[in-house]
Every structure is written in C-alpha cells, then in structure tokens.
C-alpha cells in the first residue's frame, strides 16, 4: 500500500502540470494575439499576462506541494 502514495503523487504532479500548461498557454496565445492587433497596448497586456500567469502557476504549485508531501512523507 506504501507504493500507492508514489503513484498518486506522480499522477497528481502530471495532472497539475497539464492544467497549468493549458492555462498559461491560453494566456500567452491571447496575449500574443492582442499585442498583434493592438501593438500600442503591449505593455498593459504584458503586465496583465504576467499577473494571470502567476495566479495560475500558484494554483498549480499548491498541487505540486501536496504531491511532494505525498512522495516524501
């Protein structure tokens, strides 16, 4: 049964990365499109993009911390 924690941790880490990757990828795609349409708004878009990416990354890191705890405890 000990091994199940490792399986769970591995799956959890992978799923968290999938979610964060999709989210940040979407932000980057929209930001690139927005900048291409309106280059003068580039700096505003960049700031908003970084904040949103950090928020998503934060959620993904919550998941990763739980996975690390599962694997190491």
């Amino acid at each position, binding site marked *: 049964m000990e091994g199940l924690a490792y399986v769970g941790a591995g799956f959890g880490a992978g799923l968290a990365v999938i979610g964060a990757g999709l989210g940040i990828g979407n932000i980057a795609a929209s930001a690139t499109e927005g900048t291409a349409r309106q280059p003068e708004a580039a700096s*505003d878009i960049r*700031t908003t993009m*970084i*904040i949103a990416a*950090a*928020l998503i*990354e*934060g959620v993904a*890191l*919550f998941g*990763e*911390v739980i996975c*690390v705890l599962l*694997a*190491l405890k």
Partner: protein
Amino acid sequence: MATAPAVPGEHSGEAEAETPGAVIMHHVMDSNEFAFEPFGAVELPRMSIPASVPLLGGLDISITKRVVMIWIVAVALVLIFSIVGSKYKAMGVRQAPSGMANTMEALVEFIRLDVAKANIGHGFEKHTPFLLTVFMFILFCNLFGLIPYGSTATGDINVTLTLSVFSFFVIQIASVRAHGVVGFLKHLTVGTHWALWIIMVPIEIIGLFTKPFALTVRLFANMAAGHIVILSLIFISFIIKSYVAAAVVSVPFATFIYLLEIFVAFLQAFIFTMLTSLFIGLATAHEGGHDEHDTAVAHH
C-alpha cells in the same frame, strides 16, 4: 511562526539522511546549524521560552539558518540603501546617478510608478515605502538564497506567512481609512439585496483571508520548488550512477534552472508587490467612476 519545539539531537539522523528524498527535504527545511559542507558547520543557538511563561510557554525561538539569512539580508539592505541615499544627497539636481545608485534608482522608480502608481492611483505615495520594503526584502532573500551555502528565507512558509500578514493589515487598514468603518462593512455586502447578505457576507469575509493565503503559498512554493528541481536534476546522475547522465542531463539542466531561478527571484518579488498594491487599489477604490480614474492614471 509557531514551529515545533527543538528536539535535542534532532539532526543526529545524518547517517540515514542519504536517500535523495531525505537530502532534498533536509535542504528545503530550516535547520539549527549553518553547514559549510566540506569545512564543517556552525552550530546556532537553540532557545525556547520557559514553560512557566503563560500563553507563550515552550515556544521555540531558536536562531535558525533562515533567521541568520534574514539578518544578513537586513544588514545588506540597510548598508546598500544608506550608501545609495547619501550618494543621492551629495548629488546635484541635474546630475544622473551612477553605479549602484543607478541600479537601485531603476528598481525604486519601477515599483513607485509602474506598480504603486498604476495600481493604487490616488494616494499611492503613502503605500510606496511599504511596497518598496517588501519588494527589496523578498528580492534580496531570493537572490541570497541562490548563493552556495545560503538558504532561501522566502522558501520558508513561516517567513512568507509573516510577510502576507503584514500585507493583510496594510490592505484592511487602507480600506477602513478610505471608506470609514461603515463603508468597510458595506463593502462586505457588495451592494446586494439584504436577503442575499447571509450568503454574500461570509463569502466576502473568506475572500479577505484567501488573498494573503494565496500570497503566502505562491511565494513559498515557487522558491522551494526551484531548489527541489535543481537538487532533483543533480540527483538523477546519482540515482542511475552514470557520468554520462551527469554530463548530459544533470549539469546543463541544473545550470539552466539555476539561471531561470535568478529570473524567478525578480518575478516573484514583483508579483508579491504587484498583487499587494492591486489589492490595496481594489480596497481603496471609490465606487463609481473609478474606471476612468484608473485609465487616466495608466496614461500618465
């Protein structure tokens, strides 16, 4: 804040701490000694409040590795900014700063204008000292943690929790100052019908606490995760016992992540400051017409 009381001889399990997981955890955790691995270690004093003291009895107040790092960062910040400040005083009005003063001016101006002014708007000058202190402290903690033998103070959840508790009080006090106690309580109802208050008020109160909680975990997890990734990459070559893996995977990728960490150090300090000022701005914004006010500030 509240850590487990120090158990005497807690670090005596050095012999069993040879698996990669244990070594990584040991590196990411706080410890009671400052290790300079091949050259020995400096034992730091352990102390705790006597059990006879009411309320705080038995609380561990040992000077740990992280505490020492915080002191080093504090001394470095005081030294750097007193030197830079005296340089500024000696400078003429039309003279441009050079060297370290120039670097610090770029950072200070960035926080003052692009972070504080852009997000808080009216009355941002009052909050600039707090935001600058938080930014510089987190940045220097992050960067000093990357120096070999150092330890990332911001990779400790106690440090980041304390920082975001400061942010929490600054945000709420700014909100009460801007709207008064009645206005602050009115904010919790979000202007809905009174029949909805039983749902809206608890949600809004929980919302007040999730913001600093998210700040805490984001900074802690980012800084701790970077160190875990670097160590894991190094341990790949030890686990599969191959020089080829060390040359091809471990060293180049660990170096790459290490350089990425320098960027992350700046980014996380920026994000923490940015979100704090964003929350201050949201808490102090006046209802109605704050939209055009925001855009007016952004175009300055």
